[in-house]
């Protein structure tokens, strides 16, 4: 079996025969050989076609096993060299290339044949960019610079004519692939009468349409990148016209109250769920949406996004000098304004020349709402993927297998400078082009946004990024804006845009503040912190402050004990409403709980400080052996594991110098260690003669000597009948700021050991 030919080998040999006929310039044999190749390829796709348990088409050719690529990808690769061969014969006979451009449509299944999976269909559509690259390589090889002209190289004479003819056919063939969608997905199936069935057919087609749309943008990007003036004109035209007459005759896009907020993510839902997801967007006086109306609106929005991103990307190339000629900038502006290849054709095209400042800014905000960065399976991720794939063709050459930092964009956010240039070129000299009303409308009803208040915060963040890019705008941004608009005045435009954006930001923030002020505190969040704080301070532990070997007990309410109140000021209310109106911090609860725990420790230390102490004076420096001999007797009285708490700045510093002094082979006069029991104590300095020395903010000459086991028990008394030992509350101070007030009733039981307060004096000072 291993020696028998595999489908890939058979396809390769069939492709060899096609290539041989191209070399022979034999059109009849070529068509026969190509027919044989395509017939076998279609059979392979059909023979592997199946359906999943949910009825969605699946293809076993997608299963790669341990191979690097899935079989259907390997099969598609066979066409690459055919395009290379056919392109080489363009000046002799264009029929080979023309015929090969029909390969994708000839691979699509006919009525009655097994349906192909979305992945296989996308792969078939990827043949388009494959032949576009070969065609652009031919253009690059044949383009010449006119003598005495500084313009970019271009095709001349007969080559120009031939290429123009071919590229119009290429665009036509490519556009015709879209006409297969109604048949492929049974849009016109009259048996599908229910909205649910119609929606299922329409949403099944979305991966195919999206791939066609993004590949159309890719064709344009390839042409611009290769300085192909003719190709970019026709591909731009194809992108502008994309989906205009796509099998939905008689159906117009549904009118939502906020049409820009409908994203293709809606196709991930079944019909009833889709209706629920768009409910906030539906105008109350409008009839309920139809599947085709909703589909058309989502499709139109996706088309607008693609046009905006593509025009921004080619503008970005121009601004970053990645693409040196004016073609990129010209294409970008023409695309943004939806200009057709021939002005006469623009009569039937919606949206031509209607690009305005307001549209661009609102579309920009829509892109921000499309999904967060690095999220998978969202429309936002698809848009990021589009930017990444378009810009990827500009990546520098890298050695395969090496790890390298990409020099290309990987998402929408990298296009900021291009968007700023668009906005600067379009910003009105006076007024805000009606933007303010739109912003106020959106900011007052965040429920219509995909993620509510979070979407508004993202919008503010995006607007702030643009404001940041205006102070001052980069030279490339100014040049691009000037290129797009002859009347561009840098200072006036920047000031106008800055004012509009800041007004918008302020309007959004004002609406948010008003909502935040009115929003009630979510008591469950407060209770969660209280519960965690209580668990934390009641949990057994080895050490608290300088004390070890003690117990923590719960005790009944004791009204003679005054509860301790800890206040943490400057707390944002936004964290305590539901949903949160500020970016949630993963460790916010832990921080608050930790502060309450510290307050409990501080209170305990305060109780210890209030205890009576016996005085003891010693006239030796802490680094003298006599000092330690002098306190040995009192240290023996304080109990096990004695601790000497000294001034951190005075005695502590002297002792540290002494402990770490260079002595050569001479041993220190006292036993000194810096490890063991004491090393876990806070502000630990060293253990000298068995006494653990720690630092504190004491005045010079003052020290306390006590046992680390002086504490016997910590008791927390119940604060109420519900046996809460800690209470936590949010108390408002300002409109959107407040305090966390934590309360607990803590007492301590101490062992009967003495505490000494030492007065240390330097004998030289006496």
């Amino acid at each position, binding site marked *: *079996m291993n020696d*028998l*030919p*595999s489908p890939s080998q058979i396809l390769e*040999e069939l492709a060899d025969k096609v290539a041989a006929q191209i070399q022979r310039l034999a059109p009849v044999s070529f068509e026969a050989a190509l027919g044989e190749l395509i017939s076998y390829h279609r059979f*392979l796709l059909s*023979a592997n076609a199946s359906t999943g348990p949910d009825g969605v088409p699946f293809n076993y050719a997608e*299963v790669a096993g341990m191979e690097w690529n899935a079989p259907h990808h390997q099969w598609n690769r066979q066409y690459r060299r055919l395009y290379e061969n056919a392109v080489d014969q363009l000046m002799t006979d264009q029929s080979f290339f023309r015929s090969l451009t029909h390969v994708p449509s000839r691979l699509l299944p006919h009525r009655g044949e*097994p349906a192909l999976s979305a992945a296989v269909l996308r792969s078939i559509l990827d043949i388009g960019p494959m032949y576009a690259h070969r065609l652009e390589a031919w253009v690059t090889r044949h383009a010449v610079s006119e003598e005495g002209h500084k313009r970019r190289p271009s095709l001349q004479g007969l080559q120009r004519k031939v290429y123009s003819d071919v590229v119009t056919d290429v665009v036509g063939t490519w556009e015709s692939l879209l006409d297969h969608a109604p048949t492929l997905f049974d849009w016109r199936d009259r048996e599908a009468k229910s909205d649910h069935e119609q929606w299922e057919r329409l949403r099944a087609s979305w991966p195919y349409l999206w791939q066609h749309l993004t590949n159309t943008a890719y064709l344009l990007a390839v042409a611009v990148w290769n300085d192909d003036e003719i190709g970019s004109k026709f591909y731009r035209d194809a992108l502008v016209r994309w989906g205009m007459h796509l099998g939905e005759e008689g159906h117009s896009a549904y009118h939502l109250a906020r049409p820009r907020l409908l994203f293709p993510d809606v196709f991930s839902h079944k019909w009833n769920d889709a209706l629920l997801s768009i409910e906030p967007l539906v105008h109350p006086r409008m009839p309920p949406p139809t599947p085709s109306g909703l589909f058309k609106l989502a499709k139109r929005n996706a088309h607008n996004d693609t046009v905006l991103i593509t025009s921004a990307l080619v503008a970005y190339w121009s601004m970053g000098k990645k693409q040196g000629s004016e073609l990129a900038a010209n294409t970008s502006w023409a695309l943004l304004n939806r200009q057709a290849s021939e002005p006469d054709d623009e009569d039937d095209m919606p949206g031509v020349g209607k690009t305005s400042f307001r549209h661009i800014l609102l579309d920009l905000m829509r892109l921000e709402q499309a999904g967060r960065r690095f999220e998978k399976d969202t429309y936002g991720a698809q848009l990021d993927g589009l930017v990444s794939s378009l810009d990827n063709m500009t990546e520098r050459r890298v050695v395969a297998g090496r790890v390298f930092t990409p020099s290309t964009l990987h998402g929408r956010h990298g296009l900021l400078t291009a968007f700023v240039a668009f906005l600067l070129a379009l910003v009105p000299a006076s007024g805000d082009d009606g933007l303010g009303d739109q912003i106020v409308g959106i900011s007052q009803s965040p429920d219509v946004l995909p993620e509510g208040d979070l979407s508004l915060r993202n919008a503010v963040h995006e607007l702030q990024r643009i404001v940041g890019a205006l102070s001052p705008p980069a030279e490339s941004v100014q040049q691009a804006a000037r290129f797009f608009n002859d009347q561009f005045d840098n200072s006036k435009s920047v000031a106008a845009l800055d004012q509009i954006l800041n007004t918008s930001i302020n309007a959004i923030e004002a609406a948010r503040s008003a909502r935040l002020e009115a929003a009630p505190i979510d008591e469950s969040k407060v209770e969660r912190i209280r519960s965690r704080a209580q668990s934390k301070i009641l949990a057994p532990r080895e050490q608290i402050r300088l004390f070890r070997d003690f117990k923590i007990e719960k005790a009944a309410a004791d009204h003679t004990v005054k509860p301790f109140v800890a206040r943490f000021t400057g707390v944002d209310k936004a964290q305590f409403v539901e949903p949160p109106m500020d970016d949630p911090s993963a460790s916010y609860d832990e921080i608050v709980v930790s502060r309450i725990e510290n307050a409990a420790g501080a209170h305990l230390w305060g109780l210890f400080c209030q205890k009576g102490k016996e005085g003891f004076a010693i006239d030796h420096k802490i680094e003298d052996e006599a000092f330690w001999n002098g306190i040995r007797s009192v240290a023996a009285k304080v109990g096990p594991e004695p601790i000497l708490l000294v001034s951190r700045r005075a005695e502590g510093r002297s002792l540290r110098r002494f402990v770490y002094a260079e002595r050569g082979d001479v041993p220190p006069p006292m036993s000194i260690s810096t490890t063991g029991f004491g090393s876990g104590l806070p502000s630990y300095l060293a253990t000298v003669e068995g006494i653990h020395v720690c630092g504190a903010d004491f005045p010079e000459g003052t020290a306390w000597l006590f046992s680390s086991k002086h504490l016997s028990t910590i008791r927390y008394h119940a604060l109420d009948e519900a046996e809460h030992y800690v209470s936590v509350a949010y108390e408002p101070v300002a409109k959107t700021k407040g305090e966390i007030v934590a309360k607990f009733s803590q007492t301590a039981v101490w062992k009967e050991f003495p505490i000494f307060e030492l007065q240390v004096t330097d004998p030289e000072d006496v």
Partner: protein
Amino acid sequence: MIDWRRGGPAGSLNKWVRREVREHMEKNVAIRKARPPLLRRMINWLFVGRSFSDYLLIYIAINLVCVLIEFIAGRYFNDSIPVWSLTNQDDINLKAFILAVGGYLVTAQVGVLGVISIAIGLVSLIAQREDASTDVKLYYHQSLSVEVVSSCIALLLVVCIQLVWPAQFVLHRMGAGTHLQFFKVVLMCVHIGWLSVNLVALANFISTTFFFVQRVHRERIREQYTAYFVIPAQMTKRLREQLYHSAANSLASTSGTEAKHVQLSFGYDLGSPETVEVQRTFNTTVALHDVRMLWIGWVVRRWTKRCRSASLPQEAERGEDQKPLLSFCIFLDQAMTGTFAICKRRGGVPLTGIERWVLKRAFIFQRRVRDE
């Protein structure tokens, strides 16, 4: 999620894949359309995959059965043998007739071989001129040329040898058997039947040869070959690999909510530091042939529960790379010899004896003649 119960009571990986492929072959419209006609399917059943030695062995078995029956009949049922098979009966010399038929068969087989040789030579020449090596292989495969030639040569050899009936001669020299020609007639009928089948296969060969130069028929032959030989084999191979390497997800999901606390991996050796839980030693070259997934799922569920009950609460918050891991670090179909680990563990609790025993038997190895 994969329902491993489709692989039988043990959740066999191979059974799961075989069932999947069989169902696909039955349901797929394109494959059903490419199905060859009944006669062709019968020829395939008789010839595909058989070699010269296979034909000889089958015939030797038939011959030995005849000799044995003749021996038993000659001794115990002599009267039951038809008398018309006497050597000279009604002026017909049956012995001479059988000998003559043998000669005709030899002649026919030699002629068949000549035709086949010429046809193969012509097609090979044409195909090589068109640089169509896969087409040549396809032609050889679909015309059953190797099998038909093997069968013809085997029959030729058999008929030549049976001109002297060596087995019957030995039987008669031992004083057993019978002088009646009945059993030789039976064997002669076998020879004629075999020749007839060869001729039908030759007709198929000739039709394949002539049709192969026509595009439509060539496409049809190519599709038949792809649908009934390549797709099942390649689909089986890829599905086995894919399912084995993605088994971690399916087993984790069938293990319930506990699964998020552990990690599984199949077919990846993540290296040290890990504890070898199960290992096996083979003195011959073997390869992992099948895996009983439901058995592994049972072990994983038990182990996960014990890991959960033994771990501290904060361990649930661990990152992916810190979770307890069971790594089945063995590759499907990879030839191995000596001692090798089947299951390694990182973190978590050790497996119990019964779990190790089950895991050892969940991985089925098959002897390999040579490294593949």
